[in-house]
């Protein structure tokens, strides 16, 4: 490498100095990742408790646990949780609410996780 090339590369290194992300981006992103993880876990736990009372629902929590390993699923959970109140109003009893929730999960998963 010639001296000229070395000088030019040094200038290039200075020109393309690493850029520090804004502090609020780091905080926001970290919070998003933590929330995604925790929400997915909370939702699965309460959902499992309800579903496990009825053996006919055992397959679904198992499938959810497998899918629940990803942030994509957490997004599904977030959206489905957001519509919880609406489903409650539409449902006459707990079984109906459970069915609506499962249906909502399935539809949302198809939208958010098309490659699965």
């Amino acid at each position, binding site marked *: 490498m010639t001296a000229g090339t070395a000088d030019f590369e040094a200038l290039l290194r200075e*020109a393309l100095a690493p*850029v520090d992300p804004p502090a609020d981006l780091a905080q926001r992103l970290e919070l998003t*990742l933590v929330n995604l993880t925790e929400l997915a876990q909370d939702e699965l736990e309460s959902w499992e408790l309800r579903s496990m009372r009825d053996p006919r629902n055992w397959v679904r929590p198992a499938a959810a646990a497998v899918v629940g390993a990803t942030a994509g699923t957490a997004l599904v959970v977030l959206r489905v949780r957001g519509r919880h109140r609406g489903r409650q109003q539409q449902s006459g009893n707990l079984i109906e609410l459970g069915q609506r929730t499962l249906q909502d999960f399935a539809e949302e998963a198809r939208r958010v996780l098309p490659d699965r």
Partner: protein
Amino acid sequence: MADPLPKNKTELDARFTELYRAHLRDVYSYSYYRVGNHHDAEDLTEQTFLQAYRHFERALRESDGRPLRPWLIRIAHNLAANFYRDRARKPESAIEDAGVIPSPHTTESLVEGREELKAILAGVAQLPDDRREALIMRFALGMDNREIARALGRTDGATKVLLHRAIRQLEGIVAQPERDEASR
């Protein structure tokens, strides 16, 4: 020796947190120099890590212990390509007004060389995409040839040639105004 694969979700999340903390600055720097402004760079960085989180387990399995930085940068690279395609736009200027980013280690010499650095940044913006990206990875992120090759999906040899040509072309672009000036 490579770390063993995580045994459960908690370990997986801990590993992802390590990756995120180690490479947030890399992903942000790459995004910034790709899209040319802080607002879009933040979006791109956020999307990159969410996408990475989604596929992290598989990436760990398939990486065979190799560093994951090229994989992260490749995600950012693909998202940046979609970013332009989706919005059907190009950066108005490659880097905000081709201004020099204050280095975390600002020195007097950097201030003295500011015009020269601006000319280099403007030159980088004129390079073909693959050459520009290779230079960003090498000089902004400090990636070696092998890492760049993995991020760009090329061979080590092809990457070496790409970098060499990118630097030569950039030298030519930067020197051109000086030559024009001298011939007047």
